[in-house]
C-alpha cells in the first residue's frame, strides 16, 4: 500500500516536472525551424539564441514603398506603424508583411493619399568574418496589391 502510494506520487510528480521542460523544448524546436524556414531572428521566439549572433532585432528593418497612379515613393515608418514594422522585420512572413501593408494602406487612406500597391522590403546587416565590413542584405521583397482583382501596373 505504501509502495503503491509512493509509486503513484512519483508518477504524479513526473508529469508535473516534465510538462514545463517539454514546453520549453517544443517551443525551442519550433523556433529553430522558424529561423531556418521563415527568417525569424535567432534572438526571438523562445529558442534561447540571444547573444549568439549579430542578427538581432536592432539590426533588422523594414522599408515601405507605396505606389499609385501618380506616385511612387518610400514612406517613413510612422509611430503607428512601428510595432507592425518591427514584427515584420523580426519574422518576415507573408502574414506579418500583409498586416504591415494593410496598416500602411489604412494610414495612407486616412490622409487621403492614393495607394494601389505597397511594397515592403526587409533587411538585415551582416558583417564580414575578418574585416567586420558591414553590408545590408535584403531578406524579403513583398508586394501587396490593394485591389487584388486589378491588373498589375507596368
Amino acid at each position, binding site marked *: 500500500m505504501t509502495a503503491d502510494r509512493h509509486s503513484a506520487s512519483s508518477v504524479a510528480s513526473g508529469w*508535473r516536472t516534465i510538462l514545463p521542460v517539454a514546453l520549453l523544448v517544443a517551443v525551442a524546436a519550433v523556433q529553430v525551424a522558424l529561423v531556418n524556414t521563415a527568417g525569424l531572428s535567432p*534572438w526571438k521566439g523562445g529558442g534561447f539564441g540571444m547573444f549568439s549572433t549579430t542578427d538581432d*532585432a536592432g539590426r533588422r528593418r523594414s522599408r515601405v514603398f507605396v505606389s499609385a497612379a501618380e506616385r511612387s515613393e518610400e514612406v517613413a515608418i510612422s509611430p503607428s506603424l512601428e510595432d507592425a514594422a518591427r514584427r515584420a522585420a523580426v519574422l518576415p512572413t507573408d502574414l506579418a508583411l500583409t498586416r504591415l501593408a494593410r496598416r500602411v494602406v489604412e494610414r495612407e487612406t486616412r490622409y487621403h493619399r492614393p495607394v494601389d500597391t505597397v511594397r515592403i522590403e526587409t533587411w538585415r546587416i551582416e558583417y564580414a568574418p575578418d574585416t567586420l565590413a558591414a553590408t545590408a542584405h535584403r531578406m524579403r521583397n513583398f508586394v501587396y496589391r490593394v485591389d487584388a482583382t486589378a491588373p498589375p501596373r507596368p
Partner: protein
Amino acid sequence: MWTRLLRPAPDGDGVPDSVLTLTAIILLLRPLDVWWLAPVVLAAACLSLAVRSLRRRPITWLVVAALVAVRIVVVWPLSDNHVYLLGYWCLAIGLALSSPAPAATLSTSSRWLLGAAFAMAVLWKAVLSPDYVDGRFFRVTLLTDDRFADASLLFGGLSREQMADNRQFLEPLPAGAELLTPPAFVEPPRLRAFAAIATWAGLALEALIALLCLIPAQGRLLVARHVSLLAFCATTYALAPVAGFGWLLAVMGLAQCRVSQRAMRAAYLAVFVLILLYAEIPWTGVLADLTGR
C-alpha cells in the same frame, strides 16, 4: 485535482518561501509591458507577497503562467527569451505546489529547465550561429551596442573618438558598394582579447551549466552545479543588460537548494541582490569616467 489547485501547499513541504517571494519580486521589478495584462500580474504579485496562503496556492502561479503565455502570444514574436522562461517557471511552481512532493518536484523542474535553456543557448552559440565562434558577435556588439559601450572603453582600451569612428565603419553599405575613403577602424589588442574572453568563457560556462544540470549529480558535482550557476550570474550580469534573466536563474538555483544548504541559499540571495545592483548602478560608466576613458 481541482481542489488541490485552490488549496495552499502545506508549510512542511520544504518549498522555500524565498523562492516564491523572489519570483513575485521579479514580476514586480520587470512588469509585462501590455497594459491590460500588467495590472493583473502586478496585483497577483503584490497579493502573493502580502498573503502567504495566496503565494502557496498553485492556482496563483498557474494563472500568472497563463498571463505570461498570453503576453508572448500578443506581442509575438518580439518577447525576449527570459519572458518564456518566466512563463515556464511560474507553470513549474504551480504544478509543483499541487504535487504530493512539492519541493522535490520544483527542484527537478528547475534543474531540467535550466539544463534545457542552457543547452539551447550552447546549441545556438556553438553550432547554429556562424558568427559566434569566429568571434564576430562580440567584436561587433562591444562596439555597436550602447549597453556595452562603457565596458568596451574600460576593458578594451578604446577612446571615445575611436568608438565613434568604429561605429561609423560598422554602418552597412548596400551589397557591392564601397566608400572612396572608408572611416578608420581601430581594434586594440585589448579589445580583441576582451571579445575573445567574452566569447569563449561565456560558451564554456554555459556548456558546463547545461551539462551539470542535465546529468544526475551528487556530492561534488552538485556543488559544482551551484558554483557554476552562481559564477555565471555574478559575472555575466555585471555586463549583460538582462537582469530579469539573471534574477530568474538565481531563483531557479535557489529552488534546488536543500534546507540544510544555508551557505548556498545565502549565495543565491546575494547574487539576486548583486544583479539588482548591477542593473541600477552604471558601474562601468562611472569607472570609464574616473579613468578618463
